[in-house]
């Protein structure tokens, strides 16, 4: 293994290339660069699930697919775990496969990663690195990618959008090399790189890159019917270690293959990627070692120090797995001191993973006497500025001069706080005692056992203090808050609210403020139902043990989720339903992942335009029907299931009152509530009433309840003479207006037929208590 000593040239990315392939200039973000590379690779399948900040990769590809610019089969998983499974299956099928994720998405799919490496199934995964919860933070650091270090995947790093584009081609070729045969991650910094547009060069002629990539080599596949093969046998102790030796050998082979592939790619692009990027390290006494975008920022600072005659440089890896051990040893051999910055801590290890591994590498090099200071910086998206880089460089210079490190490990850039400064003052809390009773009187018929609800006049309900304070960050016209407000009008007593990740969560709890005036919990996107199950059962157990006083009235446990949360969280929610905990699950259904920019959810109707079901010359929106979540819960035989809409407040409030009655006495209740989203439905902010009315009058969103298995339609547009064709609803929204054009009549008819079919079934169930 020779050491790459060539210095990375300090030239601007995107300048006219010197490579042999014809290229053209573009101006793109890292996510867009990943999508363009995917288009140019021509992957067979992309399995994905939206998560900030990587979602734009799928969005850009959806736009390009709609316009016929590529033919990658785009499959939106039910969550990242499902998306990773889709990718694994597809990759096992012998074609080229792509995924893109971040943060919780990587962690949720993490268990797929070692399986994929251990069973030697190549694919490419783009990681727009973002901090991991909790508390939830959507911005960039390296705490997610560090979790992937032990998975057996090759990890390429991309410091800017140009590198994102280039590394995606290298990733395909490296992973498919027969001596390697491993899946490959391309990791770039969330927001700093994923969302920052820069000048880049892209291929203007795909023939050279097609020749570079060749066809995917044949590996055993379950689609080879002449050679039936068992994939994924059960393998115990005498054998598994040997599988891992092979995996290690593949990693070792990658040490040879990666420079070969990057050199071959350089011939096409003119862009040089050594395993270790060494900037102005010539004769350097002191160095800073950083990953990705921060290293680029540090180059600016190094220039300033070099101008002053200080011998300093920046070292940053372009490859993290296999770790460039030899290269680090060579680069640091004459360096007296280095500051190693990690954008994530390995808590309790006195350094982040980069720091630990560099220290381990040089510790075994007898010729190396570099003194190292380890620093944690830039967590949760905190900017790393040139001034921070200057601090790191000065620390390295001071350490070099002293010959020893004053403080071996520290956090850089944290705020101590001022004891005299108090945080925001809150409003008085809202307890059960503060809530007037009787806004919805639930009466049980002594003979039939049926519940009926008598509502107080709406004006009287204004006496009920809102459990949610104003000042939240929901969009103008948002239907989620009216939904929650209507729910709150009739919910009595103490409540514990749990929100799954989504618009309602992020807009009501931006630290250090909260809009909630009652107890509130957020855990993860997908496991709110499990979390609340545990909380409910702990309540009852602690009451039983006498640790909590048995109150006059038990609290009500309410989970609130968007329709996206009920995709990724379906398993946990159905588990809770089958266990029949005493809790409510309320879903505000605005028909998409609106929190992350309006990607399709399974509740998005067919033909709807979303940012991952775009419309164009080829595509006309979502390709399959909306999920019938209420019927899924009805099949769990829980006490009560309902549908409602904020456009029909009195119907909604009656159902919520019944739901609370059952949730406190019998078990789990579920309600799906159609909520307005003017931004992403593309309607005026004040357009809720007509569009919700139309959704219901067209029977797209029927209002009904299933009470102990008996279905009752609570608003029947047929009987009221208000039934309208689906087009009356579709024409009101920018996301569906294209369905009324001639070319899309088939989609519109399919939606109408599905609406009619479900409505007919519902009417039959309404008419027949046995159904």
């Amino acid at each position, binding site marked *: 293994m020779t050491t790459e000593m060539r210095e990375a040239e300090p030239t601007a990315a995107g300048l006219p290339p010197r490579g042999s392939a014809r290229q053209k200039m573009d*101006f793109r973000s890292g996510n867009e660069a990943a999508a363009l590379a995917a288009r140019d690779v021509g992957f067979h399948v992309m399995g994905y699930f939206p998560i900030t900040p990587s979602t734009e990769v799928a969005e850009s590809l959806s736009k390009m697919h709609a316009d016929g610019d590529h033919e990658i089969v785009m499959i939106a998983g039910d969550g990242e775990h499902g998306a990773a499974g889709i990718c694994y299956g597809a990759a096992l099928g012998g074609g080229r496969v792509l995924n893109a994720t971040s943060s919780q998405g990587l962690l949720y799919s993490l268990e797929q990663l070692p399986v994929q490496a251990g069973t030697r199934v190549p694919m490419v995964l783009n990681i727009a690195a973002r901090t991991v919860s909790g508390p939830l933070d959507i911005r960039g650091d390296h705490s997610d990618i560090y979790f992937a270090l032990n998975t057996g995947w090759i990890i390429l790093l991309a410091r800017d959008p140009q590198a994102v584009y280039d590394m995606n081609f290298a990733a395909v070729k490296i992973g498919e090399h027969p001596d390697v045969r491993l899946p490959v991650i391309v990791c770039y910094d969330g927001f700093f790189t994923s969302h920052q*547009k820069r000048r880049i060069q892209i291929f203007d002629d795909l023939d050279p890159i097609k020749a570079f990539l060749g066809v995917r080599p044949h590996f055993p596949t379950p689609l080879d019917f002449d050679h039936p093969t068992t994939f994924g046998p059960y393998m115990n102790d005498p054998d598994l270690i040997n599988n891992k030796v092979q995996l290690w050998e593949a990693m070792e082979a990658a040490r040879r293959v990666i420079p070969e592939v990057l050199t071959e790619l350089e011939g096409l692009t003119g862009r040089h990627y050594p395993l270790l990027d060494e900037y102005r390290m010539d004769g350097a006494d002191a160095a800073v070692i950083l990953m990705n975008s921060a290293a680029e920022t540090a180059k600016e600072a190094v220039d300033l120090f070099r101008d002053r005659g200080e011998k300093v440089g920046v070292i940053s890896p372009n490859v993290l797995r296999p770790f460039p051990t030899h290269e680090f040893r060579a680069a640091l051999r004459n360096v007296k001191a280095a500051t190693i910055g990690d954008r994530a801590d390995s808590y309790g290890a006195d350094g982040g993973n980069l720091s630990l591994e560099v220290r381990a590498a040089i510790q075994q090099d007898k010729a190396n006497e570099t003194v190292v200071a380890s620093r944690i910086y830039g967590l949760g998206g905190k900017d790393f500025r040139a001034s921070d880089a200057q601090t790191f460089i000065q620390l390295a210079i001071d350490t070099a001069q002293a010959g020893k490190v004053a403080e071996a490990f520290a956090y850089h850039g944290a705020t101590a706080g001022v004891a005299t400064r108090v945080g925001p003052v809150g409003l008085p809390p809202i307890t059960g005692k503060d809530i007037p009773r009787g806004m919805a009187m639930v009466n049980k018929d002594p003979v039939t056992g049926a519940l009926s609800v008598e509502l107080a006049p709406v*004006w*009287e309900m*204004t006496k009920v203090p809102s459990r949610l304070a104003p000042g939240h960050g*929901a969009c103008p016209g948002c239907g989620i808050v009216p939904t929650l407000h209507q729910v709150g*009008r009739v919910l009595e007593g103490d409540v514990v609210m749990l929100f799954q990740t989504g618009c309602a969560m992020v807009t009501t709890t931006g630290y*250090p403020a*909260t809009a909630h005036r009652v107890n509130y919990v957020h855990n993860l996107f997908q496991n709110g139902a499990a979390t609340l199950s545990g909380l409910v059962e702990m309540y009852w157990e602690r009451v039983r043990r006498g640790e909590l006083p048995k109150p006059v009235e038990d609290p009500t446990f309410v989970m609130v989720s968007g329709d996206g949360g009920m995709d990724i969280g379906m398993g946990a929610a159905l588990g809770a339903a089958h266990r029949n905990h005493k809790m409510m699950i309320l879903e505000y259904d605005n028909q998409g992942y609106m929190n992350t920019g309006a990607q399709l959810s399974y509740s998005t109707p067919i033909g709807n335009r979303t940012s991952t079901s775009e419309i164009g010359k080829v595509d006309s929106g979502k390709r399959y029907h909306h999920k019938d979540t209420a019927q899924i819960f009805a099949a769990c035989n829980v006490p009560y299931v309902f549908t409602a809409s904020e456009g029909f407040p009195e119907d909604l409030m009656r159902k919520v009152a019944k739901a609370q009655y059952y949730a406190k006495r019998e078990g789990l209740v579920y309600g799906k509530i159609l909520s307005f989203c003017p931004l992403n439905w593309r309607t005026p902010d004040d357009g809720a009433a007509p569009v919700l009315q139309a959704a219901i009058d067209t029977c797209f969103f029927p209002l009904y309840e299933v009470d102990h298995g008996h279905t009752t339609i609570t608003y029947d547009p047929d009987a009221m003479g208000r039934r309208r064709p689906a087009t009356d609803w579709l024409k009101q929204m920018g996301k569906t207006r294209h369905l009324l054009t001639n070319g899309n009549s088939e989609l519109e008819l399919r939606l109408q037929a599905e609406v009619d079919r479900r409505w007919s079934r519902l009417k039959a169930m309404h008419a027949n208590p046995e159904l």
Partner: protein
Amino acid sequence: MTSQAVSRPAASGILPNAAATFEIRFESIGGLGAHGAGQILATAAVLRLGLNGASFSSYGSEKKGSPVRSFVRLTPSEAPIRTSEPVEMPDCLVVFHAALIRNPTTFAGIKADGTVILNAPAGPLPELKVLPRTVRVFRVDAGVIALQEKSRPNAVLLGTLCEAFPFLDGEIVREALSEEFAGKHPEAVASNDRAFRRGQTEVEVVTGIGEAVGALPAARSEPAWGFTTQPEGGIVMAPGSTFWNDLSMSRVGWMPVLDTEKCVHCGTCDLVCPDLCLVWGDGEPGAKYLRVLQGVDYRYCKGCLRCVESCPTGALAKTAETPGLADSLRVPLFPEFIK
């Protein structure tokens, strides 16, 4: 404060100071199009004007109607752009909403010889006294022009920006704007064109309004709590503390105004208001109504007008927001905390 006509030397594609970086910060509200404006401008600068550039925005969980910042960094073609840090010391600030000038961080870091492009109607601007005295201010009534032309303020402000900086060739940037919309929204091209051109011409250049000397200091937000004071576990123990937020900047020209004579206090509006900003109280003893809608706390109203749409009597009316109107009509929801 003096006004003067705009002169237009042509030096397309060459930065005012050829050796330096030219940095623009857009101060805006989500939904006004600052992010899009930055992207269109930077794309044109890189692909059409031969500069190197970067374009990005501040990202958080903020939704439509919340403050956002967008950044454009330009350098000569051969100079690398390596840093990804936000623009702290801008050469040019583009302020998308007049209400933002009350926010002390809006002008933070503006250079002494910097330029402010301001979307504001005619009238005195005492808030601009904080600016350096050597700053140029270009004022344009982008909101009104955008409404009249069925465009968006960003098209107008891009026009004004190009007018202020001839190296940003107006014709070329306008072409880039047109091409951006030509594919998916061809109907918007002509209106954006008109809005852009009016942004170039209907400009008032204000000089001598600032009183500060030298560049303004950069501002970095300090967290309320640090690691010695933040409650362990990231919890928030101050219920409902979002009520300190002021969201009035989210409104884009319209507000609901209550006519108490017409109101029958039915409560319908209360069921549809997303901003929880309607103020209710008990009626006078013996009066007709037991509960009374007293008005709107405009601190929280984002101007969606769902209340107006729902009102059965027309008591809540869609009203153009003029300066000071919301302050004069505001009924505080929490007078014990915020008068």
